[in-house]
């Protein structure tokens, strides 16, 4: 049976119970995100192998850091994010966000994070502004505060004109920008941005990257996945490379370039994975 990774190996998995950290709630943690031996196995349907989406992944992200999580399609990036934001339960290992365990402290985590999903997820019958207002209210923001922040964000991303139109008529790029604004309207302490610029035209992508870069000055922790490796190289404080569910490298872009004696991060990626990051995109 061929699994998702193209291998015909039979996978036999012994699932360990989810391990809770001893100190479940530690709001004074010195890290924004701490992941230790994180593993996620999706049970295969009858007759199919189980799929190891994330295997033994460990890393730490400091407050205010822009952390790039790089990997080809199907590498395990989104599954890792989903475990950190509570959409998937880890099979084993620990994941702590701002001192809260993802298993027991999810309600605290949800107050602190902003999530920009890979696919734009908005109410199609609402306008851009109405979508932003709705999510702002779900984060307990006041109307005046929402309006003020919405205007600034829309202006920054050049989306003001379209914001009063129903999102049903938005282009893919506009939807992605709106998707990101919604995730950041409440100024989260930690933002998870999953491929925020895929499908954007170069101008919109540049504006979005500038915007993401500007968040660093506000001491926000950004956990970012992307296929645009040159931009990750320019913006990220540190990057981690994941492939086939395993974390294979982590460090600052400069250190990795130096370590592998290559010109840029794209070449680092090719050297350690044997392929280009954009393959299959």
């Amino acid at each position, binding site marked *: 049976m061929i699994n998702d990774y193209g291998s015909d190996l039979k996978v036999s998995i012994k699932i360990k119970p989810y391990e809770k950290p001893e100190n479940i709630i530690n709001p004074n943690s010195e890290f924004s995100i701490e992941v230790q031996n994180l593993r996620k196995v999706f049970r295969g349907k009858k007759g199919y192998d189980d799929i190891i989406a994330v295997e033994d992944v460990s890393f730490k992200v400091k407050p205010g850091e822009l952390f790039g999580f790089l990997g080809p399609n199907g590498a395990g990036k989104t599954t890792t994010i989903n475990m950190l*934001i*509570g*959409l998937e339960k880890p099979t084993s290992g620990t994941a702590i966000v701002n001192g809260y365990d993802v298993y027991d402290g999810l*309600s605290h985590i*949800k*107050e602190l*994070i902003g*999530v920009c*999903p890979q*696919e*734009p*997820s*908005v*109410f*199609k*019958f*609402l306008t851009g502004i*109405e979508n932003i*207002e*709705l*999510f702002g*209210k*779900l*984060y*307990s923001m006041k109307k005046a505060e929402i309006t003020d922040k919405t205007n600034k964000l829309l202006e920054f991303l050049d989306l003001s004109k379209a914001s009063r139109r*129903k999102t049903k008529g938005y282009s893919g790029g506009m939807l992605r920008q709106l998707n990101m604004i*919604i995730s950041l309207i409440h100024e989260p302490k930690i933002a998870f941005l999953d491929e925020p610029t895929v499908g954007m035209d170069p101008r919109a992508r540049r504006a979005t990257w500038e915007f993401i870069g500007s968040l660093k000055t506000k001491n926000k922790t950004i956990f970012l996945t992307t296929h645009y490796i040159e931009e990750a190289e320019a913006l990220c404080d540190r990057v981690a490379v994941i492939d086939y569910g395993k974390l294979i490298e982590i460090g600052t872009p400069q250190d990795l370039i130096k370590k592998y004696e290559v010109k840029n991060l794209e070449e680092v990626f090719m050297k350690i994975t044997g392929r280009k990051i954009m393959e299959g995109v």
Partner: protein
Amino acid sequence: MDIQKILALLKMELLKLVREPAYLFLMLLFPAVLTLTFGFAFSDPELGNTFNVMVPGLFAYACIFIIMTVSQSFTELREQGVLRRLNTTPMSSSDFMLANLLSNMILSMMQVAIVYVIALLVGFNSNSDIVGILFAFLLMALFSLSSVGLGLITASISKNAGTATGISFIFILPQMFFGTFLPITSTTRVIAVFLPSYYATDALTSIFNGANLLSANILIDFAFIAIFSIVVVILGILIFKKYGNK
């Protein structure tokens, strides 16, 4: 319970009504058209006003139709990834469900009001006073809860909105044929007694005929609808949380 969040979601649900033409048609225009059609077809002075007998069933039918719109709405939100996104916000699932229950109860009240007004315009005669009419609306609000519950169950087992539409008729058709505006025979009653629409129509018929609201018949109907609706809506929420919200 967070009132601001519930009101924000409620506003969103009600905006959908004016923004989505198909939704508007299903929720408000369809019951209106149905009532008008039946009104003109069965209000024949020479044959006697059989439309009067059908109005309670039309009230119930309007509420039954919510099964389809609820199931479509939830499967669409799931397909669009909006439910997953909502799951990453601090909003609790009980706030989300409460907002949906309230919005659907409001919509069902609007449907019933439309059916009632149009029925009066095309010749419906009620022997009930204002208290009786208000009680009929309360009964329908309660009955609509069971439709929301069945809609949630439908959404949980449907992969997409198209499938949800089809599956919803498994719940709509029996209630329509065994307990709304179609006459009940001794044979169909055997099945009808297990369906809430039968009790809703029966109670409404008594109310519109001017029966005492505290009569045993109406109270039994009310109790059956209340118990059935609460059980089904709780079941619907639990099933949707476990299987439908992925």
